[in-house]
């Protein structure tokens, strides 16, 4: 309990820092620490799958994205100071936010007893999916439609980002060109780390069927390795108009949707799996979905095309 109280205070302190810090870069660093601490909280709440996602995606990729943006916007910081809201508005906001927190806190304290839960149903049907990890079973079986739509949301966000490219750069290469430094530390570390990271990403994905892990966590690590490799210039990002890249992006949702439709014929419903082949079908979906999510996440961080096709 003492550990949990300390952790909760630390999370709140770091969160307050990301709001109060004068410098945006410092605030983003605070946010990364906040994400890692939240991952610890998720472990304490017996949710290791969420902890992995929070650490990799919530803290890692989001932090990297915001760090990149804050360095690009660094010289706009001073001019924003005059937009500061007046003291009255700040005070009113403080009162409002305290009320919101108090309301939510009251709800937490008044949660019904015994707590409503779907855990028994999830546990009872776990065997039918052939999986050992109940969270993966929820994502891929009982609530598979959420996961299918989520892969589509990722693609829509990517289309939105690409559409921000100026006309002459349409279909070009995303992000800036990083300098090549063959003897640099970054290149050396990337050469060491990227192969290991790819292996870890695939493992986290694979082990997700029986233990904490899964396609989102694995895909995030794979995406991070892609970003790392492009930063160290081991490889450059492909132009976003490349046909193979487009195929990689849509293959996951397409296979997912096709197997979902096939469910009508073989199991009597959209995204229904026949019991004998449930695990095989889920894996058939997960492999291309992991590939597509990894590519989409990496390109989301890459941003709109900034270099023209040669």
């Amino acid at each position, binding site marked *: 309990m003492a550990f*949990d109280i300390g952790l*909760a205070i630390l999370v709140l302190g770091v969160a307050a820092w*990301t709001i109060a810090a004068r410098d945006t870069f410092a605030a983003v660093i605070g946010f990364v620490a906040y994400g890692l601490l939240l991952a610890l909280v998720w472990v304490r709440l017996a949710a290791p799958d969420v902890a992995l996602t929070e650490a990799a995606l*919530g803290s890692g990729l*989001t932090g990297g994205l915001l760090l990149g943006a804050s360095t690009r916007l660094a010289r706009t910081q001073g001019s*924003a100071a005059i937009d500061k*809201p007046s003291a009255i508005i700040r005070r009113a906001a403080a009162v409002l936010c305290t009320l919101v927190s108090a309301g939510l806190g009251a709800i937490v*304290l008044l949660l019904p007893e015994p707590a409503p839960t779907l855990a028994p149903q999830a546990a009872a049907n776990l065997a039918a999916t052939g999986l050992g990890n109940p969270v993966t079973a929820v994502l891929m079986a009982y609530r598979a439609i959420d996961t299918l739509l989520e892969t589509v949301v990722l693609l*829509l966000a990517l289309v939105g*980002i690409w559409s921000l490219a100026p006309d002459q750069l349409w279909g070009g290469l995303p992000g800036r060109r990083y300098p090549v430094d063959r003897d640099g530390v970054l290149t050396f570390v990337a050469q060491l780390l990227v192969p290991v990271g790819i292996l870890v990403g695939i493992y986290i994905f694979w082990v997700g069927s029986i233990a904490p892990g899964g396609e989102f966590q694995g895909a995030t690590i794979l995406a991070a390795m892609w970003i790392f490799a492009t930063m160290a210039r081991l490889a450059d990002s492909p132009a976003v108009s490349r046909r193979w890249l487009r195929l990689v992006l849509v293959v996951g949702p397409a296979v997912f949707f096709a197997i979902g439709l096939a469910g009508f014929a073989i199991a009597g419903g959209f995204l229904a799996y026949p019991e004998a082949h449930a695990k095989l079908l889920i894996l058939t979906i997960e492999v291309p979905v992991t590939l597509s999510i990894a590519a989409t996440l990496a390109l989301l961080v890459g941003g709109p095309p900034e270099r023209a096709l040669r």
Partner: protein
Amino acid sequence: MTDATLYGLCGAALVGLGLFGLIVHPQPLRKILAFNLIGGGAFLLFGVVARRGASAGLDGDPVPQALVITGLVVAFAATALAVALLLRLFQETGRATLRSDDSQP
């Protein structure tokens, strides 16, 4: 008080903190950051509901946990889109503010 309740109160406070930052920070990037802070708090509330639902040999209700994983991925996609919009605004106008008038800073 159980651990779950403690973290629930922590999540409630995080939502308030993030909301405050969202309102008072003039810089859009700080607003995006604050919005992610709210997200962290809201997800934590889900985590508390999941932890309280522990039964049938599971340490937590896997349904809210799966929802949080979905939520984290969608929050990331929304953040990436917001950052791209902001950088494009900066590229076009040389400024990164949400002011609607054209008065010079």
